[in-house]
Structures are given as structure tokens and as C-alpha cells.
């Protein structure tokens, strides 16, 4: 089921700034700003790195399962924008850089 079982995290080039409406996500590498328009989505994105996979993060953030498809769609578009990245990918990159 794709992303749900995978470990993800905020991209290493991205900083999150919380705002009353949600958060700004700034990508220092692409210099692009994205807006997270729901505080719950900010909790999920901010919590990605702490969860074994996305499912665990959604549960920890108390997101009702009925809303999971909407969250997954939002996360997928954040992945396309480079705001979040799969965690194993960076680990592999690091290993590659160290070898």
C-alpha cells in the first residue's frame, strides 16, 4: 500500500515554520516555499522521522482512518515537491557517501 508502510522524513533541505494556519515549508535547495494548510498535517509531517512508517505516524497523530486517504494524497504531493523524502533513501545516500 505504498507510502503507508514506508519510513519517511522531512527533507534535509527543508525547514518547517509553524504558523497560525499550519506551517510554511521552505526548501533551501530549490528555494521554493510550500504551505501546509492544516495544523494536523504539520503534526504528521513533523512526526514522520519519529515513526517506523507513515501508518505509525498517522496513528500517533490520532488521525481517523477515514481521513488517511486524504493525508496520503497530501503527503504524496509533498513528496513530489521535495518537501519530504523516503528515509531509507537518505540512509543509502549516506552509506554511499561514506564508502
Amino acid at each position, binding site marked *: 500500500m505504498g507510502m503507508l508502510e514506508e519510513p519517511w522524513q522531512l527533507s534535509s533541505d527543508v*525547514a518547517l*515554520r*509553524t*504558523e*497560525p*494556519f499550519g506551517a*510554511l515549508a*521552505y526548501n*533551501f535547495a530549490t*528555494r521554493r*516555499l510550500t*504551505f501546509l*494548510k492544516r495544523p494536523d498535517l504539520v503534526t504528521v509531517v513533523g512526526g514522520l522521522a519519529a515513526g517506523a512508517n507513515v501508518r505509525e505516524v498517522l496513528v500517533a497523530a490520532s488521525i481517523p482512518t477515514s481521513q488517511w486517504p486524504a493525508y496520503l494524497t497530501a503527503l504524496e504531493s509533498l513528496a513530489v515537491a521535495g518537501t519530504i523524502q523516503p528515509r531509507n533513501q537518505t540512509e543509502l545516500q549516506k552509506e554511499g557517501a561514506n564508502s
Partner: protein
Amino acid sequence: MTLVDERPTVAPVARPTGGSLLDQFELGLNAPICLTWELTYACNLACVHCLSSSGKRDPRELTTKQAEAVIDELQRMQVFYVNIGGGEPTIRPDFWHLLEYAVAHQVGVKFSTNGVRITPERAAFLAATEYIDVQISLDGATAEVNDRVRGAGSYDMAIRALENLSGAGFKDAKISVVVTRKNVEQLDDFKALADHHGATLRLTRLRPSGRGADVWDELHPTSAQQRDLYNWLMKAGENVLTGDSFFHLAGFGEPLPGLNLCGAGRVVCLIDPIGDVYACPFAIHDNFLAGNLLHPGGFKEVWQNSELFAELRSPQTSGACTKCQHFDSCRGGCMAAKFFTGLPLDGPDPECVQGYSEGALKQVGRSIPAASQDHSKPSKSKQEPVLLQLGMLSPKAPPVHGCAESPLAGFNPAAI
């Protein structure tokens, strides 16, 4: 300080949640999305439309230590990038140091320059540094059009800077153009020039701010030109940057790409060379002064708690404009443009594309607010642009002879 005394006071209400992002932006953010920081009022040029009436350095200019402290605070507030300008920022001796300091503190920089210090060496440094954007100002696609506004030699200076940047491998510099009645016909040429230098074109609106107030009547695009500009921008889409400054044109139909709202004190602001914080880069006037960042609480206190900014973030009354079917697109236009043309802030923009400001602009007794500061150099230099060039002697005039008609023939004040 209040912006408009006649505005009804609105009791503070709990911030609504949800709604569009624009609605949320109008209520203000914890920190600006980006801010403009004029590092100095000193400038080697004296452009006729300078927003900050720059020329002379203000002796109270922030010191290097104070400027570093500002950057530290911007980092803490997570202001991810600043637009640095002036004056000509690169003539501050600590400019390159501050640039490196900002980048090292996660504050990306885009700086505007006329190109005077963009030597091949500096260009190489810029190409090797991350998170830096360079914006070269150019107000004509030809020397003739540009130099009339920015001064003799300024076109060549800008082109040399662009060549140095591309020569050093600097990617994607910006060419920043203030659109005027004289250069609006050159939009395609500007685009070609940008493409030629591997640069991105950025067009911004002529504001009647600073010295711009003196030339606005003569230089702002005509209504027919505004329509052409709108069509051109719609066609160019996101390939041309605008700093979101043409939202008043949204009244023609479809909104332009970007933010279509006045961000003053809500998502943007301006820090001037002495640390005064204004609502926006086009509003350097006492009426839009929110505070000074050298005071206790620093920039954060001004941004989050100043009376002026609270007022700008409160629901605004937009007068007659709210009845217009295009109000949702243009939201009444630019506050600074209205203010500096002496129009009421709750009425239409002076360049309202539906023509609703024409009557007000023609009104006898419309009073243009006096500038609250002027940093222009007192004496005119040879390079200084003069818009009205009446009967000037050509420098290639034949040698003066004994019976020359004018008693001042051959008299060159600059040579004395």
C-alpha cells in the same frame, strides 16, 4: 501611530481558522515570508524613480555588529530569505561579510544591485556560494531608455555585471525592471536580453514612492499600456517574475500568478538602514513606520506587536471598492500607491484598471503627502539623470570660437 485615523476601530476577535490561504495571510503571520532590508541609503546612482530617495549614507546606519544581530534574529524567527537592497548595498564595506554571515545562518539572500561592484572576482565568489540570488536593476533594454532614468553609463555597468556573472558560471541571475511608460514597449527585448545572459526576467511596478513621486505622472504606464502589460504577463506565466507587484491588474480578468493581495505588514515588511521597520518597501514614510529594531524586543517585537501592523492585519474597510465586481481579484490595489498619490486608502488604486480612480486623480486640491525623508545628494553630478533634457549642448559640439553667441559657451561646471 495609526495609519488612518478615520478608520473605524475593530475590536480584536479570535483568529478564524480555515478559509483560503489569502484570508489567512491578511491576518498576518508569525514572521514575514520574506522581507526587504535596505542596507544603506548610499548610492553611486541617482535614479529618478528611486523608492527610497537614496544617495547619501545615513550616519546612523546599523553597524556590522548590529546587522549581524538582525540576521541572528531573522534566523531565530525562521525568516528563510531576505531581499537586500539600498541604496546600492554592495558599496557598504561589510556587504560581502554580511552576505556570508546571512547564508551561514540559514537566511538566504537575494540582493539588488546596479552592478557597480560585480567584478569578475566577486562574480566568481557569488557563483561559489549557495543560497544567493543576484538581481541586476535595468530599466531599459537599450542604453538610451535605461540611462534616461538611471543615469549615464548605468546600462553598460549592468550589462558588464551580467556578463561577469554568466562568465563566472553564476546560474540564473535576475534582471529586475521597473515597468514605465518608456520601456513597456521593450518587454520582448528584456526577455531576449535575459535569455541571452541565462537570466530570469523580473518585472515590477513603478511606485510613486520616494523620488518616484516626482516622476510618476510622467512615467507610469498609460491605461492602454497596462492592458498590454497584463496580456504580456498572462502569456509569460511563471517564466517571468513579478514580485507579485501587479495584482492591481487582476481587475482585467484572471488573476496573475502569485499572491494577489497587499502583503504590507502581513507577509512582508521593510527594514531600513537605521533599523526602522516599515510596512513595505514602497512605504518609507512616517505613516507606515511600525518601530525600530534597536529598541527592546528587537525586530520580533515590532513585527508581532506594533500597533501599525496590528491595524494592517485587522479587517479593512475598502469603501466603494467592495461594490466592484473585481474587488476579489485586486482587493483595492496597492496601499502605498494610493497614499503617495494622495488618494484615500479605502478607495481604488491610482492605476485601477476599471478607471475608478480617474475622477479622484483629476480632483482639484488632491494633496500629495510630503516626503518624510530624502537622502538624495544635494548637488547634481554629471551622471545624474535628468528627465527633461531641454536644449542641452551636445558634447560633440564644434570647438567654441571667439564670437560664440552664448556667454556661457564652453563653460563646463563639472571641470572646475
